């Protein structure tokens, strides 16, 4: 049988094609989710869902609207870079309605402070650190330091309070007997506002030479080198770490 003179097998083929095409369209409509492909090879709706998840950390600006006392203190203190919620925990619900949630108040000794301030050699130098075991034990930290303005009650006496890593390195080195001031002139202000009054660092080979040069007027036990021939083109501390010199 021929339809409009078209070969039988072509008609069959056309019918088949139509069925397969129809089924594909139906399946796509069934399985491809609604907003798929609107903005790319994904569900556009997923972006909206991701953008509408609940916020739990409100951010420090909002806290300041009601707690201006704490904010005023914090803003001028060493803790100016700290978000309120890093100590008080996520408090968006509290900021929305202060009766709905009581933020954490970490009063116990070390509860909030030690994650940041306990001595660890891996922390950057200059970051203030204490050894909890030795630093005024048993009393809560907030007894002496207001957490919103933790300025120590007295100016720290030793360089080690902030440069613990250097102090500890030096203490096991041949330079253990040298005080920091042998090589650095640190103004007293450096201990109050460290970054605005940086101490100086040795700049020339002679700084080491005054003890280690052949003819230097220094202790007999100190090993000597000839400044003219010993690593002449470099500064001494390009080869020796000054706080832990090794030969």
């Amino acid at each position, binding site marked *: 049988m021929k339809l409009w003179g078209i070969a039988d097998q072509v008609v069959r083929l056309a019918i088949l094609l139509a069925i397969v095409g129809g089924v594909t369209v139906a399946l796509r409509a069934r399985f491809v989710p609604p907003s798929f492909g609107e903005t790319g090879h994904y569900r556009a709706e997923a972006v909206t869902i991701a953008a509408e998840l609940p916020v739990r*950390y409100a951010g420090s600006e909002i806290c300041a609207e009601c707690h201006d006392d704490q904010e005023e203190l914090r803003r001028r203190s060493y803790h100016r870079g700290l978000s309120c919620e890093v100590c008080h925990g996520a408090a968006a619900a509290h900021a929305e309605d202060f009766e709905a949630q009581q933020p954490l108040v970490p009063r116990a000794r070390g509860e909030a402070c030690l994650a940041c301030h306990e001595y660890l050699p891996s922390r950057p130098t200059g970051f203030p650190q204490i050894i909890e075991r030795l630093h005024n034990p048993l009393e809560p930290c907030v007894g002496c330091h207001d957490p919103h303005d933790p300025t120590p009650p007295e100016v720290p006496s030793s360089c080690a309070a902030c440069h613990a890593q250097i102090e500890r390195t030096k203490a096991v080195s041949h330079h253990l007997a040298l005080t920091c001031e042998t090589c650095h002139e640190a103004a007293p202000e450096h201990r109050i506002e460290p970054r605005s009054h940086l101490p100086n660092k040795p700049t020339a080979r002679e700084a080491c030479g005054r003890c280690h040069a052949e003819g230097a007027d220094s202790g007999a036990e100190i090993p000597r080198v000839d400044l003219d021939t010993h690593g002449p083109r470099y500064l001494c501390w390009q080869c020796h770490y000054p706080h832990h010199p090794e030969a």
Partner: protein
Amino acid sequence: MPEDRSRREFLISVLQFPCSAALVAVCGPLATAAAATEDEASSERYFGMGIQVDKCIGCGRCVRACKTENDLPEAPFYFRTWIERYAIHADGRVDVDSPEGGINGFLPRESEGEVVRSFFVPKLCNQCDNPPCVQVCPVGATFKTDDGVILVDSDYCIGCRYCIQACPYGARFLDPRTKTADKCTFCYHRITQGLLPACVEVCPTGARVFGELKADASPLRRLMRMSRLQVLKPSLNTEPKVFYTELDGEVR
């Protein structure tokens, strides 16, 4: 007629492929064209993060904030961001540890041998501009938004874990509750409202800097102008949008 039937079957299977291929060919380009125009419209909002390694004190507050903000599983191995501690020994050996991702901070290392230097490196999804995870997703459940953030559509993810395998930074995990892939979104729900990602909000030393990559003045642009930037595994050509400064050569 057995002969006939087998021919029919043969025809069906032969035809199935070109038919669906033709449909895809017709519909595919339409979708991508729509995507392209959208891309240009909001291209100035394009997010990235800078990490100043020399400022990280390893307090782990970011890890905790991330878990809370994004409601991640409690168990200590599901992290969208985590801190690694590197210790480089005098003999060249490199130790890396990350106890519970650093969520409780760190204890002093049990030291064996002399350590020459040690420091902390925060890690997270690098939000690659050329993301291998997106390439391997068989269903389009992970994708790059117009602002450059890689998201996971957890309603559509089939949990096949290809993306977890494909990520060279180990930034993805399978959420045990939903059995779908999960990872850092730069806190998409926060940044679209103008808030900072939770980890950046709580970082006490400004080690994490968040901002727009294409704006003229953003904290991130300033950082990028002022410092020498590095990315993790640059040779993989993933083009991360998380940039590190003062990164030690030993960091992988």
